[in-house]
């Protein structure tokens, strides 16, 4: 597939302030460091440093973030299928990793078969087997132990559900429903071929296998909760030391064989990750190039971006790209809220997005106005939508006059909604997490909407529980901010989740008359085996939702990375939204 792909979905905090832009930059990256043309050098110690106290998780079944998947799959753990480790669009191409190919679907993609390469082994020399992969998958079902990782296996494998919607299989520790699980994944007699039996057609099943959660774990080495501290290595490095708040040291895995691994190029002899570095100290190190063989894993603090990114002497030590995330403002379409298209449109055109983007770091570092919940870096599922930011009446600084005409129209098309939006005794409610940034943004939002004739009140909710309470808030507020990143380069991990019956539909659109034809098409798109046809369907569905103004603002976010002067081979691995860690080397 010649499309760019994204992975690493994570709900991002709603502190982000979205914006509108005069034009959308529809490219996957900018100012991105290109892959080194010089010949890579083997040897040396590669340093990473981060403000974080630890990796959120090392247990494969617990890992969900793109950067960590990229790091750990490049060095430590292999997966059945991987992304091609190259910059640009090609980086999203699936390649076989531990498996001999990227999977063989049959039975309308309800059955997927993979065969393990010979010579793939654990760090103790034992071969990686089908039973290990099956055991790894079984751990996802132990939801009383593992709650952090992706749960696709529970949704997809052909295992009955209990009345409460949970799987009848309760994982390898409780063993309840073990026979059901055993039927859903079969191993061949030689323990090398694995067959997944799914409950429904999943055309993009093999993309999930780029996740470490879809990889193997040797049952004999499973230490339950503590496996998160010392997972077994199948990649070119293994853990010598991992001390939270201190450092992680990776050394070469003597049992790893290049002949069994067509992907990885382990250049450094050792890799050291230093945790808990003060953010000011970390940024100073970058600015002064004090660790030439080091890489900042976090990015700089926004206040230091200008000093680094506008200094021409540092141009070979930085990159600035679109990250995998789209920030959005979801309109509550349910009755008694923004249940009127004209009112939603009026809100959209009234927003002063320029000020909001500037508040968050500007278009260079924060992001640019989007026209879609699907981000351009997702590839073929993205197409520019019509209307919204492409409407001639759209102004990035807000168009209160046009918004007023839309409100005037709403007076007759939907008088109740108009009354709620403009009556000083009623007014719109906007729930935000109680943070300093949000308070500044709220002033801008309120000023812009009031200029167009709206009555609006920002309701601040405790930031610590804001995300946890979104399910409650979405029923009360008139619009709600959040963010999203696709799990892989298929809008199947975006549109059904955000606008369909997935986890994070904050639009409340299910109760509107427009929803029935929409969800019908979503369900057809999910099982469409013709990828081009499927992409077209996602594009149409994006347009449909944007025409309904289910989202009244989207922003395509950006992220920045920096490193030392002796680092070579750096590139932006688009599907993971992160460094392509596996090709980095130390210059002599």
């Amino acid at each position, binding site marked *: 597939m010649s499309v760019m792909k994204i992975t690493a*979905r*994570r*709900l991002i905090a709603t502190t982000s302030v979205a914006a509108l832009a005069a034009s959308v930059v529809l490219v996957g990256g900018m100012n991105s460091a290109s892959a080194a043309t010089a010949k890579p050098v083997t040897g040396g110690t590669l*340093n990473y*440093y981060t403000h974080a*106290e*630890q990796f959120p998780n090392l247990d494969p079944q617990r890992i*969900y973030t793109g950067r960590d998947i990229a790091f750990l799959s490049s060095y430590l753990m292999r997966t059945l299928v991987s992304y091609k480790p190259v910059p640009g669009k090609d980086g999203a191409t699936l390649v076989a990793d531990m498996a001999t190919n990227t999977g063989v679907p049959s039975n309308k993609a309800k059955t997927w078969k993979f065969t393990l390469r010979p010579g793939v082994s654990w760090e103790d020399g034992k071969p990686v087997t089908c039973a290990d992969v099956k055991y790894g998958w079984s751990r996802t079902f132990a*939801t*009383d*132990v593992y*709650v*952090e*990782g*992706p*749960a696709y296996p529970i949704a997809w494998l052909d295992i009955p559900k209990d009345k*409460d*919607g*949970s799987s009848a299989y309760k994982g390898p*520790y*409780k063993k309840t429903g073990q026979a059901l699980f055993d039927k859903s994944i079969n191993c061949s007699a030689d323990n090398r071929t694995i067959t997944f039996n799914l409950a429904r057609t999943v055309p993009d099943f093999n993309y999930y296998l780029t996740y470490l959660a879809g990889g193997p774990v040797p049952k004999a080495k499973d230490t*339950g*909760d*503590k496996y*998160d*501290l010392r997972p077994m290595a199948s990649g070119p490095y293994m853990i010598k030391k991992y001390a*939270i*708040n*201190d450092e992680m040291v990776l050394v070469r895995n003597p049992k790893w064989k290049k002949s069994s691994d067509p992907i990885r190029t382990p250049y450094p002899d050792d890799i*050291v990750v*230093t945790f*808990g*570095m*003060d953010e*000011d*100290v970390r940024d*100073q*190190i970058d600015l*002064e190039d*004090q*660790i030439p063989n*080091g890489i900042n894993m976090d990015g700089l603090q926004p206040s230091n971006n200008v000093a680094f990114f506008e200094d021409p002497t540092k141009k070979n030590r930085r990159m600035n790209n679109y990250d995998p995330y789209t920030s959005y403002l979801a309109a509550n379409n349910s009755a008694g809220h923004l249940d009127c298209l004209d009112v939603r449109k009026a809100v959209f055109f009234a927003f002063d997005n320029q000020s909001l983007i500037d508040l968050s770091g500007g278009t260079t570092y924060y992001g640019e106005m989007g026209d879609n919940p699907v981000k351009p870096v997702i590839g073929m599922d993205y197409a520019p939508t019509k209307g919204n930011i492409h409407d001639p009446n759209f102004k990035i600084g807000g168009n209160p006059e046009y918004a007023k005409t839309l409100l005037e129209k709403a007076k007759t098309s939907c008088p109740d909604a108009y009354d709620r939006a403009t009556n000083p005794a009623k007014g719109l409610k906007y729930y935000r997490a109680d943070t300093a940034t949000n308070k500044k943004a709220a002033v801008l939002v309120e000023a812009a909407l009031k200029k167009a004739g709206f009555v609006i009140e920002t309701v601040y909710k*405790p930031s*610590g*529980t804001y*995300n*946890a309470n979104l399910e409650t808030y979405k029923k009360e507020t008139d619009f709600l901010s959040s963010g999203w990143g696709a799990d892989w380069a298929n809008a199947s991990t975006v549109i059904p989740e955000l606008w369909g019956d997935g*986890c*994070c539909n904050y639009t409340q659109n299910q109760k509107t008359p427009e929803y029935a034809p929409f969800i019908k098409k979503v369900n057809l798109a999910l099982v469409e085996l013709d990828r081009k046809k499927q992409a077209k369907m996602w594009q149409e569905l994006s347009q449909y939702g944007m025409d309904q103004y289910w989202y009244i603002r989207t922003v395509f976010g950006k992220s920045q990375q920096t490193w030392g002067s002796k680092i070579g081979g750096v590139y932006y691995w688009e599907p993971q939204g992160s460094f392509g860690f596996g090709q980095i080397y130390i210059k002599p």
Partner: protein
Amino acid sequence: MLTFVARRLAYTIILLAIVSLTIFFIFDLIPVDPARLVCSKQCTPSLVEANRHRLGLDVSVLEQWWRFIVGLFAGRTFGEEGIAITCAAPALGYSFSRHECVTTIVAEAFPFTLSLALGAFVLWLSVGISLGVLSARKKGKFADRAASVFVLVGTSLPTFITGILVVLFIVLQFNLVNPLELGNWHNPFTEPLGWLQTFFFPCATLALAYAATYTRFTRSNVIETSSEDFIRTARAKGLTEKVILRKHTLRAALAPIVTIAGLDFAGLLGGAIITEGIFGLNGLGRLSIKAVTQTYDLPIIVATTLIASAFVLIMNLIVDIAYAFIDPRVRTS
């Protein structure tokens, strides 16, 4: 005397129990749900409940607290069905974010905090008292004015400013410490130079503010004591100024300072959050602040708060006992 000590010890234990119970209640009140925090986006209500059970938060606050108290004396087992984890007594809990018994985590963090507190204590006492005495002796002269400037700077610059300045413009600028080794632990007995490299600057940073305050205390106490009748008598007896200072003035002037120093030291043993953070020291302060602001790790919050409280209470106990020895009226009252 024994009764007095026993009574004070009993009060201390009761106070610690109340502190621990209060922490559990406060934690229950804060608007954060730890069970949801680590849950992925596919988090269902049943998954949250399962996680709450795993974290031990599915029972009443009193029950949680009682389990904690029992664990202190009998140890505790966390998790079930083949993947249980046991923490031996005194079990302060199990951290599911660090995958380790809290007692072990605290034991690893304490040497950092002790080193920092002890080093800073020695520095601030020696600098603060010396400067204070010098300042008092040279009242109104250049040395006194210079000491006043030091006091002004030390008390007006917060630690988070001096710490950052020391790291950025001294430690890193002059390559005195490899930035990647900032905060690395070295055993002071086997690697004294390494220990010094790690702890000298944080101790100096932390000591600066205290030393300034102690300079002022000492100066005013020495000046005040010097005008007492017994000093005039000593001088009239023909004793030299050095002997008067050493044998009479300092003994009287430093007594209250030593008491305050003991309590300040006890407070620092609970962790110096800012200094530990800036210099990358994995002490109790840093441990507790991360547990509060990032992971909402109740067992760690309880343990670090309890330890900090215990140090203060124990130091108070020691001071009370010492006072009781010095002044019998305290015992009877």
